[in-house]
C-alpha cells in the first residue's frame, strides 16, 4: 500500500519525527559539539562536531529543527543561515585535514530566507559549499532524514553516497511554492508534490540517491544500530579508495545527471 506524495511530504515534515540530534545520539557515541563559523557567528540550525561511529572517529554535521517550540525558534526551524553553511564547511575542512570521514544529516525546508541572510551572502555560502565539497579529500555520506529542501539541503549533500530515509523528501522547490508559482494556487500542492517526483523512491529511480533506509519494522535501538552498521560498512568501502578515485567518482556521480538529455 503506497501513500500519496503529499502524504509523504507531511510525514517528512512531522514534528514527531526524530531530528538531527536524535540521530546523532542514537547512531553515534561520544558526540562533542564544535561551535561557530570563525567568521561571525554560530548558527543553531546547524549542529556539528566529533563523534565515534562503531569505533571510528568521524565528523558529523546535522541540520537540526528542534522539538519544543522554543528550541525550534532558536534553530530557525532548521533553516540554516549563511553562518550554518560556513560552520559546516569549516568542520568539513577540518575533517579533511585529519582524514576523518564526514557524515551529514540533512533535514531542512530550505536555507533561511531573510534580510540578514541575504546581507551575509546566503547564495555565496551555499555556492562555496558545493564547490568545496566536490573536492573534499575525505569520504562524505549524506543522509536525508526528513526534508531535503532545494539548495539549502544540497549544500550538505554533495557527497559520495546520498541516502534517504523511506519517508524523507528531496525537492527543488516546496510543493506549495511550485503550485503557487505555476498555477497561482498553493492549494494545489498535493498535485505539485506528485509531479515533482520528490519521494525517496523517485529519487532512487532517477539516480539521485544510492539507497533508501526503511523506517519501519525495527525498535528504536535496533534501528539506530542497523543504521550505524550500514554507515560503517559504507565508509569501510569508501576508505579503500585512493583520494583520486574517490574524487573522480564523486565528480562523475553528479556529472552524469542530465547528461543523457540531448536532442
Amino acid at each position, binding site marked *: 500500500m503506497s501513500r500519496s506524495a503529499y502524504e509523504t511530504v507531511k510525514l517528512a515534515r512531522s514534528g514527531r519525527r526524530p531530528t538531527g540530534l536524535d540521530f546523532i545520539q542514537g547512531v553515534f557515541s561520544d558526540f562533542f559539539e564544535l561551535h561557530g563559523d570563525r567568521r561571525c557567528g554560530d548558527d543553531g540550525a546547524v549542529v556539528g562536531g566529533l563523534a565515534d561511529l562503531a569505533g571510528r572517529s568521524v565528523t558529523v554535521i546535522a541540520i537540526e529543527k528542534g522539538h519544543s517550540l522554543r528550541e525550534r525558534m532558536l534553530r530557525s526551524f532548521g533553516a540554516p543561515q549563511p553562518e550554518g553553511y560556513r560552520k559546516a564547511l569549516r568542520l568539513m575542512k577540518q575533517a579533511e585535514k585529519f582524514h576523518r570521514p564526514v557524515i551529514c544529516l540533512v533535514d531542512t525546508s530550505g536555507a533561511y530566507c*531573510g534580510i540578514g541572510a541575504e546581507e551575509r551572502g*546566503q547564495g555565496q555560502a551555499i555556492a562555496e559549499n*558545493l*564547490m568545496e565539497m566536490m573536492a573534499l579529500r575525505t569520504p562524505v555520506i549524506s543522509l536525508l532524514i526528513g526534508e531535503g529542501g532545494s539548495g539549502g539541503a544540497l549544500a550538505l549533500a554533495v557527497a559520495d553516497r546520498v541516502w534517504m530515509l523511506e519517508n524523507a523528501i528531496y525537492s*527543488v522547490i516546496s510543493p506549495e511554492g511550485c503550485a503557487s508559482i505555476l498555477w497561482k494556487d498553493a492549494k494545489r500542492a498535493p498535485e505539485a508534490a506528485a509531479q515533482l517526483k520528490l519521494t525517496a523512491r523517485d529519487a532512487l529511480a532517477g539516480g539521485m540517491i544510492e539507497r533508501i533506509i526503511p523506517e519501519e519494522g525495527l525498535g528504536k535501538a535496533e534501528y539506530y544500530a542497523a543504521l550505524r552498521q550500514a554507515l560503517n560498512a559504507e565508509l569501510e568501502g569508501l576508505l579503500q579508495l585512493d583520494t583520486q578515485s574517490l574524487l573522480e567518482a564523486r565528480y562523475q556521480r553528479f556529472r552524469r545527471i542530465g547528461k543523457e538529455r*540531448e536532442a
Partner: protein
Amino acid sequence: MPFLEFLFQPKNELEQGGRSAAPVQSDEREPEKTCPNCHNAIPLSRLWAGLNVCPCGYHFRMGVRARLRYLADKGTFRELFSEVRSGDPLGFPGYADKLETTRTSSREEEAVICGTAEIQWQKCCLFLMEPYFMMGSMGTAVGERITRLFEYALEHRLSVVGFTVSGGARMQEGLYSLMQMAKTSGAVKRHSDAGLFYLTVLTDPTTGGVTASFAMEGDIILAEPGATVGFAGARVIEQTTRKALPKGFQTAEFLLEHGFVDAIVPRSRQKALIARLLQMHAFEGGASA
C-alpha cells in the same frame, strides 16, 4: 591599480555608436520605451545605439545576441554545445509545450549560449544566459552546457567569462534541475584548481540556484548597475519576515556594500575591462591556443 583607471572615466553611454542591434523603423512615430528609473520615453533606436542603457544610466535587460555584438570581436564567436537541449525528465504537465513556445518566441534553443570568442583579441570561453528564455532558469541543458564549457576551457587552458541572468532553478525538471548546481560547481572547481581564470558578470536578475552556484564562484565577480542579485526572492522574504525591505535591497550596489561583488561596471566599459582582466590572467603559451 592606477593603470585601470582610464576604464572608469565617465563616458556618455550614447556616444558608443555603430552598434545598433536591430534595423531602425523609419515610421513617423518611432516606438519608445519608458524608463522605470527616470520615467522618460526613450526611442528604441536611441536605446539600441546606447547598448540598451537609458541616458540616466538605467540598464535595460539585454538578450544574448545583442550582448554578443558589443562584447565579442566581430566574427569571433563560435557557438559550442548548441545540440544540448532540455528534455522533459519528469513529464511535467505543460512543460514540453512551454519549451516549444519559448523556443519559437526567443529564437534560442535554451537559456544559455556557450562558445569561444575573442574580446579585444583575448581568446576565452564565454557563456551568456538568456533573460528571454524562461528568465534564464537552470534546467539540465543549462547545467550541461555550462559544465561542458568549463571542461572545454580546462582542456584548452582558457579563461571563462560568464554573464548570468536567472530566476533560479527550472522547477519543471525537479531534482534534475537542482543537481545542476552541484554539477556546474564541480566543473568550476576543476577549472579553478588548474589555475585558470573565471570572471562572472551578474546582470538583472541573478537569483536562486544560479546565485547559489556558478554565479558566485568567479575569481572576480562584476555586476551591472542596478541589477537585482540575491538568493531568496524579495517578495518571499517580505512575506516570510513581514518586514519592510531596506531601500536598494538585493541590488548590485547592496552586494558591493556587503562585500559580495568586486565592482559594478556599466555596459559601456565592460568590454575593455574584461579584455584587460583576461590579459592579466592569460596563461603562458595557452591563452592563444
